[in-house]
Each structure stands twice: as C-alpha cells, then as structure tokens.
C-alpha cells in the first residue's frame, strides 16, 4: 500500500465530506455562530476586575440577556455594559461573587425572572448553572483559554460547528444527532424538544432568530417548554432571597456600588402563569420594598409594557432595542445610572 497516496485521498475526500456537510447544514438554515458557553462568559467576567465606577454589569437570566441590547445602551450612555446574564439561571451567586471577590463599585443591574429569581438560594439547576460558570472562570487553564480563542474564528466560519453547551435539541453534533433517535417507549420521553432561538456576539449581546417571530410552529415549540414542569417546581421563596440579598447589597453599597432590579416583559400564557404562581404583590413588591433598592417593573411604565414576546418570554431583537432605549432613558431620568455623554 502506498501511504502517500492514501494521505492525499484522505485529505481530498475529507475535505469533500466536510464541504458537503457544511453545504447541507447551511441549506437547512444553520448559520455560523458563537456558542454562548462558559468560556465566552468567563471572558466577560474577567473584565469586571478592571471596570471603573461609572460602568455597568448586567446580571440575570435569559430575559435580560435577550431584552437588553448592548449597542443601544452604549449609544445612550457612552458606556458599554458587561453582559453576565446567563440563560436559565438565578443571578444571585454571580452577584455574591462580584460583591465578595471583586472591588467593582459601579452599577449592577439584576434582571428578575420570577420563577428563577425567587428560588431557594443554593439549590436547584438555576443555582448550579451559574456556579459552574464561576468555577470555570476560576479554574480555567491556559490551554482552555487558548482553545476557546482558537475556536472563535472557526465557529464564526463554519455552520456545521453548531453544538452548544446548552445542548439544544437542534444541535448538529454527532452526540445530539444519535441521542435524538428514539425507539419505542421503554422509558418516558425526556425533556420537550428545546431549540436554540438566538445567537450571541463575542461580547454576549444576543440577537433573536427572525424565525422565532415569523414561524409560529417554531415559537410554539419554545412556548411549550416554558409551560412544562410548573407542577414539579419547588414553591417560590421570598424571605430566604431577601435575607440572602440584604447583607450583599449593604456591602456593595458601602463601597459605593449601585444596584438596580429590573423585571423584563413576558406575554401570553407564560405571563398568566407567573401572575398566578408568583404574583407580583406577594414577591416583587415586598422584595423591592424590603431591600431598599430601585426596582423597575415593566408593568409600571407605559413605554415598557406594550411589547409582546414572540415566544412569551423574550423580546424580538428590534423590540429589545426599543425596550433598552426606554429602560436607559428611565434610569437616566431617575439618576440611577451614569452617562459619559454630555447632555
């Protein structure tokens, strides 16, 4: 056997196989996009150590992530916030880490998604997920940092590199494709199909896919996920969350920090469920009252309450841009954030 010939055949055929796969996945609507993984998050977290006291850090779950657009915020204030919101999480452990382990004394805006935020501190997936990101931030090796930096140009170039740490149902890596095969009913079917509905930039600014608004079936698939599992979730808690936040906020304010809470919009059945299970009067209102920090609820402002979320939980990006502009304007009017722009 001629090994040299084999190598050339392997190189040529390998290139052809990968090219065919790349063309196929593009034809199926996949785009080359970055994975919003722990490594990308850690890059943003590292920036917090070098921020000045007029800068802003955004914490929260996917609602802040989708609804606050960094370009619009920067345009309005001259300051580009650091996006540390993390999908499907409570911001509490991240806020604690910033208070306890950094000298940051600027503004922290915390998004409140009731079902995730009013959960028992230290428990559940909503706590574990951000904790894992923090662990990665502290433990990441130089090799992991190099791997991530090298992966960014590849992820931006090739659509077939479409696998996410989130393990979306429509990822196209081998593991997801194989594990997606289902035969018979020996075990109950697992989680509902949960497809990715947005992509991030290098600084984690999110853009929602256009099909989330235009493709009702696609949006309905996501809506089903939001509606599932409510009966199995632990009851929301208030006192434990207040007790957890109070000393942290006091410590943060003592060194000059400002904290703002923001309740982003939800719509349809999702909003109805939130109203029924975690009513504002029993959770948001007493929380804001007791922690003595500014809180902004979308329902309280006409300019924030007219939006409709295509999948009942997040704003479509053009709406998110408007929402961000309005939020920033309100915060500036109330003098709770700073601007580098002259009036």
């Amino acid at each position: 056997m001629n090994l040299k010939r084999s190598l050339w055949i392997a190189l040529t055929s390998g290139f052809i196989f990968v090219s065919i796969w790349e063309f196929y996945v593009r034809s199926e609507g996949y785009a080359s996009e970055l994975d919003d993984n722990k490594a990308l998050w850690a890059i943003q977290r590292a920036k917090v150590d070098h921020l000045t006291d007029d800068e802003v850090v955004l914490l929260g779950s996917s609602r802040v992530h989708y609804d606050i657009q960094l370009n619009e915020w920067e345009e309005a204030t001259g300051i580009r916030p650091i996006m540390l919101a993390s999908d499907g999480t409570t911001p509490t452990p991240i806020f604690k880490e910033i208070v306890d382990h950094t000298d940051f004394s600027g503004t922290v805006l915390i998004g409140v998604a009731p079902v995730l935020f009013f959960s028992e501190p230290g428990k559940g997936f909503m706590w574990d997920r951000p904790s894992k990101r923090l662990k990665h931030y502290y433990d990441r090796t130089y090799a992991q940092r190099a791997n991530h930096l090298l992966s960014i140009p590849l992820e931006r170039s090739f659509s077939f590199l479409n696998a996410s740490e989130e393990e979306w149902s429509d990822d196209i890596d081998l593991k997801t494709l194989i594990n997606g095969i289902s035969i018979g009913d020996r075990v109950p079917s697992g989680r509902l199909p949960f497809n990715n509905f947005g992509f991030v930039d290098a600084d984690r600014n999110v853009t929602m896919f256009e099909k989330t608004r235009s493709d009702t079936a696609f949006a309905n698939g996501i809506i089903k996920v939001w509606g599932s599992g409510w009966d199995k979730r632990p009851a929301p808690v208030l006192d434990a969350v207040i007790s957890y936040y109070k000393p942290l906020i006091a410590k943060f304010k003592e060194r000059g920090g400002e904290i703002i809470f923001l309740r982003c919009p939800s719509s349809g059945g999702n909003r109805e469920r939130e109203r029924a299970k975690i009513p504002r009067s029993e959770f948001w209102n007493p929380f804001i009252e007791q922690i003595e920090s500014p809180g902004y609820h979308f329902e309280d402002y006409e300019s924030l309450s007219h939006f409709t979320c295509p999948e009942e939980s997040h704003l479509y990006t053009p709406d998110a841009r408007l929402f961000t502009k309005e939020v920033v304007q309100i915060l500036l009017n109330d003098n709770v954030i700073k601007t580098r722009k002259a009036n």
Partner: protein
Amino acid sequence: MLFNSLSFVAFFIIVLGLYYSNFLQWKGKKRMLLLSSYIFYGMWNPPLVVLLWISTIVDWTAGNKLSVLKNPVSRKMWLLISMVVNLGFLAFFKYGNFLLENFTTLVNAFGWEFQAKPMDLILPMGISFYTFQTMSYTIDMYKGKQEKAKTFLDFALYVTFFPQLVAGPIVRAKDLISQFYEPKKATLNQFIWGLFLLTIGVFQKVVLADALLSSTSDKVFDSTKILHGLDAWIGTLAFSGQIFFDFAGYSTCAIGIALMLGIILPDNFKYPYAAIGFSDLWRRWHISLSSWLRDYLYIPLGGNRHGITRMYVALTLTMLLGGLWHGAAWTFVIWGILHGIYLVLERLLKKLVPIKINNWNGIIFALLTYSMVNITWVFFRANGLDSAKKMITSMFYLNPNGEKLLGFAEIGKVSIIISLLFLCHWAMRNTSMRAISKKMPAWVFGIIWAGLFFLICLAQGSGEQFIYFQF
C-alpha cells in the same frame, strides 16, 4: 494540553516546524522538545512544572551517584532518596486526602470525635505516570540494568517527553533515552503512519468514547436509583468501551505523535477485550503499567520463586497496589483485588482443568473474560461503594423492579458498538492495524481515513479531558 484540542493542533504544528527546520542542530531540537514539553504541561497548571523539575533533578543526581558508587549502603541510600521523593509527592498529592479520611474514620471509631479539615489539593496531571517512569530509571540504575543517561538534557527529555508525559505509555529508560542520543527524523512513511495513528486516537476519544458512549455510562453510573438489570449491564458495557477508547485513544495519539518526530514508543494496548483469561488480559491492557508492576513490584515481592502461596499473595498484592495506583478510593482497591483474585483463580483452574484453547472455544472464553472484566469496571467507575453495590445487585438481576433509565435506541447503540468492539478485537487478536492496512488498497485506506476525519468533525469534541489524566 489535550491532544483533542485546537491549542494542541497549533502547538504541534509549531513543534513540527521547528523540529524539521534546518536552523536547529540536534541538541537545539532536543532543547526545543524539552521546552515544548514544559509548555505542554504548564498550559494546564504552570506552578506544577516545578514538581517535574524536582523529580528530574533528584533522579538525575541519584542516577549519577549510583553509576559511580560501589558501597552498597550508599547505593541503597541514593535509591531510597529517589523513591522517597517520588513516592512522597505521589502520596501527598494523590493519597493525602484518602489517608486523612480513613485516619479520621478509624480514630472516630474509637470515640475520639476527631474532625480533620480536608486538604484542598490539586492532583498534578499525570503524576502517577511520570513518577513511575522516572523511578524505573533509578531502580534499573541501582540494579545495574541501566547505564547513566549521557547528558542531563537527554534525561530531562526522557522524564518530560510531551507525547507520553501525562498518560503514558510508561516508557523504560533503555527504550527511550538512547533514542535521544542520535538525530532522529521520521521517514515519510513513518510520518504519515504517525498522522494516521493520531487520527485514529482522536477518533477513539472524541467519537467513540465521548460522543457515543460517555452519556450512557454517565447516566447509569450517576443515577442514585436502583436500576433494572439491563440498564446496569448496558451502562457498564458502555463504560468498558468508553474507558478503552479513551485510554487506548490517548496511547495511540502518543505513539503517533512520537512517530511523527521519528521516536518510537511501545504499544500500550493489544486488543485487550479479546483476551482469553486474565494473564492474557494484562499482556494486552495498559501493557506498560502491567509490565512495570511485574518488574518492580511482583518480582521483588517474590514472584513465583518462593512457592505457590507466596506467589498468590504477591500477585494479589501487586494487583491491589495497581488498583490504588489508579485512584485513592476503596473502589479502586476492590477493583485491584478482584483482578488479583481472577489471576489466582485462573492459575488454579489451569492446573485443575487443563483446556486446549482453539478458535471455537477461544471466543467463548474471551467473552467470559470480557464479562468478568465488566464486573470489575463497576468498581472502577462507581462513585462509591454503595453505588457499586447497587449496580452489582442490579446486574445479577436481584432488583427485578429496578428503574429503567435507557430507551431502546440507547440500548441498541451501546449493544452495536460494544459487539463490534469485541468482534473487532477478536478478529485483530493476532495481527495489527499496520499489517491489515498493508493488505488494503491505498484508496480504500484513504477513504476510511477521510471517514474518521469527517466523524471527528461531526462530533465537534468539546475538549473533554482523558479519563486517565486523573490517575
């Protein structure tokens, strides 16, 4: 740094570029390889490179002394210094917490109510591998079986050579140091074959171990429930495949990478799941460790020179320590003891029931061996003794109402992969990949190679760590 990572691809391209450049002489190339090896290790945790330096300096000094000293007491003292330093590091970093935990349990059993704060130690990657490798040099020097390395550079490179630094093969000094004495350059065929081995190794790790088997194995072993027998077996079979592909994948990468530099490393796996009996298994699985344990533990413990009883004790003790080498937990001790018992029983049975192995009964015995190996894998993988006990009970169908975790598709996936793995090992039992490839038309081999590459791209490995890095 992991072989299945982009940083390694960039690193290795630079190393190859410098290695085959004309502006470095052989000594310069060796210095470059040594520096690269420290970078390779330091990219994980730079301060721990110091441990490598200490091991290197201590064993180089001990080797130098052993090469000139004639006084038996002085010679023994230098051997002891080397062993105390090397085993001391290993004991402190790897077994410190285990010893503390067991000490606490023991004294509390006597009512002392002692509470120790766990030591927050990082286990230096590959410490078990490079410790054994460097110790073999000093022990062989002491026994007069090894000549002193010609230069410090050759010795330091032997301790640190990046392809096999963190997960083997554990190479003896006589097999590696001498290769550094003369300029080395891979022939074109060696280079291409090395690249193919690297592809196969990454394929085993990224596609077979991580993408296809790890999720099933993790699902079963991370479950806290009492499982249905079928689920317990499928999870264990998945782990048997995962650990083989993970570890053999690493060794294959290491051998391929070294070959691309013109350095030959020994085989570490020879189709172990086709082993007929456990002596055969240990001649095929992690060969460099089992031969190390044989030469530096089993034989010094008496081997088969002091009667049958002592031999069985030596065998069991060797396997027990082999288990502990893998990890500081009682589950690893049981894993080792089980293998020791298997080896003893096999020797007893061979005497009592002499059977002539042929092709027909061979595969049955191989299957029996593989099944029994799977029992031991439960202890190797389980998160604790309770979890292992539950799994073993389920595997012997003593939990008829056990929880079903796996769907038919997942059961089918694991069954197909493991059946193919076993049959492939059986078919390859007495041959090698190189021999098979030579009989293949070039275009068929090329297409297979391309297929492996495509599947690696499709799997999009997320840079999962090799299991054996933790040992």
